[in-house]
């Protein structure tokens, strides 16, 4: 996020795109609701009529995957009606003309045809966003899990720069990260092309710096594989061994059947987790890890806030904290890693990572710190891009609308979208075992519109068979006004409804994020 969570409450215009905030980020939604109670306008862009959409002043119920057409049309109106922020565009950005040229053709009327939202509504929302004192954009996977996900994000950034709605308090571009430490995992360099703090592995100087600190002669220069590419290469025998810590790709990744097949082909698979997940079941060796309650460490939340995780109890049974297991494996491979505490690891990392350099456990005892925090006297950073962008000038990257990779056709006439539920989390390994959450919300269902259900002869509660070109699942149907005609929706939290057997692994070519929000399916009444 460029802003802090607390700043959302201070916005006077909130554009929430593809975020089911009340369910996926409940406490962040409280800030949006608070802003609205204080008079802010809440505009929700979502193909589904989610709880947040219900609350919204305006719900733009667009067709799945048509976000760029909408965002470009908003920019079109703002330019045509001269509502854009001249000073900001002139002083802080570049390539405006190229952007202007592209959005020129995205008239609200054209966007109406693509998105299904009326041209007049698009105009109104554009005016509201441009004229707001402090407008903020929130988005999540509804923007990124498309083959054009990167372009969606650029379209969002273009809009914010056009109106100067970024780089100030309560005003910016705010992706809400789904998992507790997904921000931290990225910050820590658990990515194929960067070390900690997004320092590129392709840069000689960076490699030299890390090699020296780690006492090795050299480090690999070629960027590695993304998770999707790993599965592909395992399937074709180019990858022979994998080490998986705390992930469950069998349920979380698209096209599960392919993932299972790929992992089974490996010569050696080691999985380290707190439960015997669907992925761990395929392993040659399973290492029992400690849960968050059993170890010290830090998480970095979606607003770049570094927070302490504190050991409350001893690990259960013979489980061990993940960091101790990694040290043991490393030592056994002839590279001893010796750390007495998690704090020592943090210190080593902070020395190598400019954005974390000023943070230490001692400081975190006084309160959380948001990076960038370059030195021990720096208070941390609540919002980014205050006087300039990281790269200097903000660059307009004009983007064009493209339809989703797989659209409905005669054989697969409905669109399936997947997402999260309030009572559950990710692949359900934790929330299905709490003695409370799964008791209250114990079975998953398929949201289907009344009209679609009627034409398929499906009644509320009937078991339905949902099939795509890749697989099929059985699931109870729930007739719901949340989804419009033509769209069905469910979550990926329930192992017995392994919906990712169906989803499309087609990826955004830049981010490699799969298009989990759109795939074509057929729904039938199950016998």
């Amino acid at each position, binding site marked *: 996020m460029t802003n802090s969570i607390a700043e959302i409450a201070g916005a006077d215009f909130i554009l929430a795109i593809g975020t089911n905030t009340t369910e996926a980020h409940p406490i962040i939604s409280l800030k949006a609701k608070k802003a609205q109670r204080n008079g802010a306008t809440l505009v929700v862009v979502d193909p589904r009529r989610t709880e947040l959409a219900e609350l919204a002043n305006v719900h733009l119920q667009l067709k799945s995957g048509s976000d760029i057409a909408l965002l470009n049309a908003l920019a079109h109106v703002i330019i045509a009606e001269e509502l854009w922020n001249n000073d900001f565009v002139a002083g802080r950005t570049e390539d405006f003309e190229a952007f202007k040229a592209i959005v020129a053709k995205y008239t609200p009327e054209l966007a109406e045809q693509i998105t299904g939202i009326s041209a007049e509504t698009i105009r109104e929302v554009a005016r509201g966003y441009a004229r707001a004192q402090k407008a903020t954009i929130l988005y999540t996977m509804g923007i990124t*899990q498309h083959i054009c996900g990167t372009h969606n994000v650029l379209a969002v950034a273009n809009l914010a720069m056009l109106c100067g709605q970024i780089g100030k308090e309560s005003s910016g571009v705010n992706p809400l990260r789904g998992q507790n430490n997904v921000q931290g995992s990225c910050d*820590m360099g*658990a990515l194929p092309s960067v070390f900690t703090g997004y320092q590129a592995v392709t840069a000689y100087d960076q490699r030299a710096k890390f090699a020296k600190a780690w006492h090795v002669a050299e480090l690999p220069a070629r960027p*590695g594989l993304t*998770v999707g590419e790993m599965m592909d290469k395992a399937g074709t025998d180019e990858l022979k*061994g994998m*080490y998986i810590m705390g992930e469950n790709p069998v349920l979380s990744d698209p096209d599960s059947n392919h993932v299972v097949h790929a992992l089974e082909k490996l010569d050696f698979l080691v999985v380290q987790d707190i439960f015997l997940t669907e992925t761990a079941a395929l392993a040659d060796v399973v290492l029992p890890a400690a849960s968050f309650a059993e170890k010290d460490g830090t998480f970095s939340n979606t607003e770049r806030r570094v*927070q302490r995780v504190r050991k409350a109890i001893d690990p259960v049974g013979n489980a061990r904290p993940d960091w101790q297991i990694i040290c043991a494996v490393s030592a056994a491979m002839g590279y001893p890693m010796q750390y007495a505490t998690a704090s020592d690891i943090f210190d080593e990392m902070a020395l190598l990572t400019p954005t974390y350099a000023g943070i230490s456990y001692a400081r975190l005892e006084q309160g959380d710190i948001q990076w960038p925090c370059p030195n021990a006297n720096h208070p941390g950073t609540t919002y980014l891009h205050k006087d300039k962008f990281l790269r200097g000038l903000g660059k307009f990257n004009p983007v064009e609308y493209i339809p989703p990779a797989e659209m409905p056709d005669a054989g697969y006439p409905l669109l399936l979208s997947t997402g999260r539920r309030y009572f559950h989390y990710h692949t359900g390994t934790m*929330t299905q075992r709490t003695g409370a959450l799964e008791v209250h919300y114990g079975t998953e269902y398929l949201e289907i519109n009344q009209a679609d259900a009627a034409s398929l002869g499906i009644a509320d509660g009937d078991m339905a068979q949902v099939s795509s070109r890749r697989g099929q699942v059985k699931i109870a149907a729930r007739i719901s006004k949340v989804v419009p005609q033509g769209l069905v929706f469910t979550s990926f939290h329930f192992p017995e409804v392994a919906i990712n057997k169906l989803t499309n692994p087609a990826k955004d070519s830049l981010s490699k994020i799969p298009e989990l929000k759109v795939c074509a399916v057929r729904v039938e009444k199950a016998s």
Partner: protein
Amino acid sequence: MTVTEITLTINDITVTVPQGATVLEAAHQAGVFIPTFCHDPELTKFGACRMCVVEIAGIRNLPASCVTVATEGMVVHADSPAVQEARKTVLELMLANHPLDCLTCGKSGDCRLQDYAYLYGVKTGSFEGERHCYPLEDDNPFIVRDMNKCILCGRCVRACAEIQGNSIVEFTNRGFNAKITPAMDVSLAASDCVFCGNCVAVCPVGALQEKRLRRAARTWEVRKVKTTCPYCGTGCSFDLNVKDNKVVGVTSCDGDVNGRALCVKGRFGYGFIHHPDRLTTPLIKKNGIFVKATWDEAIGLVAQKLGQVKAQYGSDALAVLSSARCTNEENYLLQKFTRAVLGTNSIDHCARL
């Protein structure tokens, strides 16, 4: 804009506060204790319980300090005999209609009614009156509601409206029959309640309790450890409640991100920690079946196999998935291991999902 200040005395202590501050806030600043039930600094002022009454020179009756604005030169007595008497009466009336089952109540030890009864030496039985006989509501796995213990302070009503923004529970009826319920007097489970438990976190007595926590430990038996929620990326802080090396519950602390607010996952989703399915020993697959192993065996085998692949096929035949659920330190170490020991950049995690 200059903030004007005013000066007053409370129990002969002189204190200067910003204009607009209440007498209760001024007392707090002066270090003078005033008991409250319905007041909560995060919620709108209610002024209903009358526990915080004080005596103010020149004002008849005893005003509630939480809704009385301090004025210049005001002379406040927060503990005068009249004040003490009034507070005792408030407590006696509450206790007259309160099930006195402190021996088994899960909130015992963390209950304002109990604390103030002790403080003011109020025993039961001064008033004998009609008692409520509401059925206990525990038809959901998260929260137990015992309306017989409710003192009608309305904190839950305001927390649900002002913190959670949901307005599930409201006051209904008047007088003796006044009650706090979801619309149509249904149970929480039958309402649109999302079981965030933010009402439970502000309840000063035993009317709203966390179902499992309050059966697992007395309030004074737990050690509280502040940590960060393991679920979504919001990063709420809370206290793990620990008894006998077991996590028995979660309660609100004052988090930098969330204050006392949590969602159902953060507050009630801790049960997985001690679930019998937890892996407690290394496993090695032999002939398709997992067999228990020692750490030395398992680590030795992992090192040998990874080393073998590297030697035979090269570093790029290996890949690692790190975890968005593990700590920064663990992610740092795993990428260090991948790059420095395995010799490949093929490390990723499910950021994209």
